[in-house]
């Protein structure tokens, strides 16, 4: 359905997307996970035909973004990161406008607008102006506008930024339902749990590069250290870190929060816990807390990049 092949994009001398490659199958929910500034939005903008790229190609249903941007635009619905609506117009008027911009007649747009309002759960607020809505409701109408023309692919660029948990859950459930009904979803986020909940396959992107693609299980299996032990210490001690690194079960150590928190990737947590604590005591370092974390995408990202998704 969607093929992104070796796409490169530079702004001036800075290359922000460095040969990104991934594909999305029809009906699939694909997540693009990465921290802020990783290149997710730039990649999305290129897929939507909003930004030209320097190298590579993007195709949707066999149509190239370079040669047939209009054909692609008809097939995709874009939910931008910001609320791209007219605040002084009502929810209904906004939906009608966007529907017409996708070529719907007034009658079809009106019928579809009611359906969309039902999908996003805001039918009772149809006549209210967007500026009177809460952040969560605005986000829902923002999604609704992209659904007006029944797109084959729904591309969502961090659609839950800055909203309350209730609205976030509503949005995630809505997207899940749309995917169940056969809509292809491309979902970008730096919230690991959202991507885990929604997506069958995930691409991890950082510094303009896709560093891993696969199902959640595939990706977690790639972790060289199966578990992460978070250890909070009284003060940083260089010789402690050096000694911990020599332990046979330790794969990698990442220091965080003024070097008072150590994230230690280990291949056996059972054996490691006691050894880690005793090594700290031996080095006269007080251990405030110690926590064993099950492997997840966050762990993978941390291991691959040395930083957290939310850094």
């Amino acid at each position, binding site marked *: 359905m969607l093929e992104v092949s070796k796409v490169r994009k530079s702004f001036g001398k800075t290359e922000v997307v460095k040969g990104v490659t991934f594909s999305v199958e029809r009906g699939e929910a694909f997540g693009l996970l990465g921290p802020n500034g990783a290149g997710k939005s730039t990649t999305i903008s290129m897929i939507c*035909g909003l930004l030209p790229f320097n190298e590579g190609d993007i195709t949707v249903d066999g149509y190239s973004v370079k040669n047939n941007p209009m054909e692609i*635009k008809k097939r995709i619905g874009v939910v*931008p990161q910001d*609320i*791209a609506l007219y605040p*002084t117009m009502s929810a209904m008027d906004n939906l009608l406008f*966007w529907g017409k911009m996708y070529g719907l007649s007034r009658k079809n747009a009106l019928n579809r607008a009611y359906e969309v309002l039902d999908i996003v759960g805001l039918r009772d607020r149809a006549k209210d102006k967007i500026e009177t809505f809460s952040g969560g409701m605005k986000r829902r109408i923002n999604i609704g506008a992209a659904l007006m023309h029944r797109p084959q692919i729904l591309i969502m660029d961090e659609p839950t930024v800055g909203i309350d948990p209730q609205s976030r859950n509503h949005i995630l459930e809505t997207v899940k339902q749309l995917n169940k009904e056969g809509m292809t979803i491309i979902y970008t986020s730096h919230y690991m749990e959202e991507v885990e909940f929604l997506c069958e396959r995930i691409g991890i992107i950082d510094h303009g590069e896709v560093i891993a693609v696969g199902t959640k299980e595939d990706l977690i299996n790639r972790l060289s250290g199966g578990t992460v032990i978070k250890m909070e210490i009284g003060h940083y001690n260089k010789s402690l870190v050096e000694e911990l690194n020599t332990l046979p079960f330790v794969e990698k150590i990442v220091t965080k929060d003024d070097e008072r928190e150590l994230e230690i990737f280990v291949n056996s947590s059972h054996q490691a816990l006691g050894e880690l604590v005793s090594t700290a005591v031996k080095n006269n370092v007080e251990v405030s807390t110690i926590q064993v974390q099950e492997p997840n995408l966050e762990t993978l990202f941390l291991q691959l990049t040395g930083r957290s998704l939310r850094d």
Partner: protein
Amino acid sequence: MKSFIIAWKDFKIRFTDRKGFFMMIFFPVILTAILGSALSGVMGETSLPKTTIGIVQTGNDPLAAVLIKDVLKGKDLKDIVSVKQVDSEKQLKTFLRDEKIDAGIVIPSNWSQDLQNGQLKQVKLLVDPGKELKGSIVNTILQSFVNRVVTVSTSTKTVITHSAQILSPNDLKGLTGQLINSLQKAANEPYKSVQNSTIGKRMVSGMQYYAAAMAAMFLLFNVLNGTKSFINERDTETLARLMSTPTRKLSILVGKFLGNLYFAIAQLGIFITVTSLLFKVNWGENLMQTILIGFCYAISVSGLAMLFAAFIKNEKTADTAGGLGIQIFSLLGGSMVPIMIFPKALQTVSNIAPNKWALSSFTEIMAGTTWSDLSLPITVLLTISILSITIGTWRLQVK
């Protein structure tokens, strides 16, 4: 087609914005009322000064009644003369001194008793030396009335005296009646032998001038608002969203241009209607000329909005540059004070202001002008439109 959808959306957003509506439609009407009334003198509007005349009338002389009722309170003078009956000459002088009246007339008792001899008793006119013009107006009115009465009386007496020598008493009676009737009829009929016509242009009143000036100035705000509409669309990502729909860039740009144009036309239409109804502003005899100039000006301000949107990056810059630009252009274009009081060099510089061309054209139309006289402003306004639309569209498409 999509351009019209975008244009209608923009028009609705701006038209339903209360703050914008107040600023763009209500405010110019208020300013027109204030400036038009306060600065009408600047336009050289002249009329006779309103004059209050005090009258002392002794007895019930019929001629005095005619002077007061038919002349001073008559339809020709009622707008400039008001009459105040005064009891005595002494009181008249007091009123004059206290400036309660501008001039005083003392009509003697039995004023017209010697009229059959072609004579009238002398009327006394008292004037305030500080109100020379008003005194002279009253003097002229009074002199003219007395001369007319004496002339008619003398001519009638002459005809009757001579006719009495050759006619029988019955014929004389008939002739007398006929003569009186004819004289009365002639005196009451308007002069038909003189045809009134005007040469040259009509004078434009202060209210007319400032109505045109405010229309030109406030339409100029569409340059700023149109620019901000573009920038706002860019800042709120709605432009990006529009571009992610299957809509060509050119259609979006045309839509934005048309939206601004719709509003400018509606603004001008409402303004002309309101000022015509409320302040009786006459926008000229040829409505087509007003419509054409208004349309050309609306296109040029909408085009300029595209041009500025192509070069200005944020709303703050637009507000600063736009606010300053509108003030300079309003001043230069004659929207604040009439261009005719500018020095020659500044009058030449004012040609760069599109509102100057609109304003001068509107006032020309109000004064009565020909199509050929309007060809230059139309050409200038259309040239501004074409250049700004072309450069703006090109630059925005590239961006």
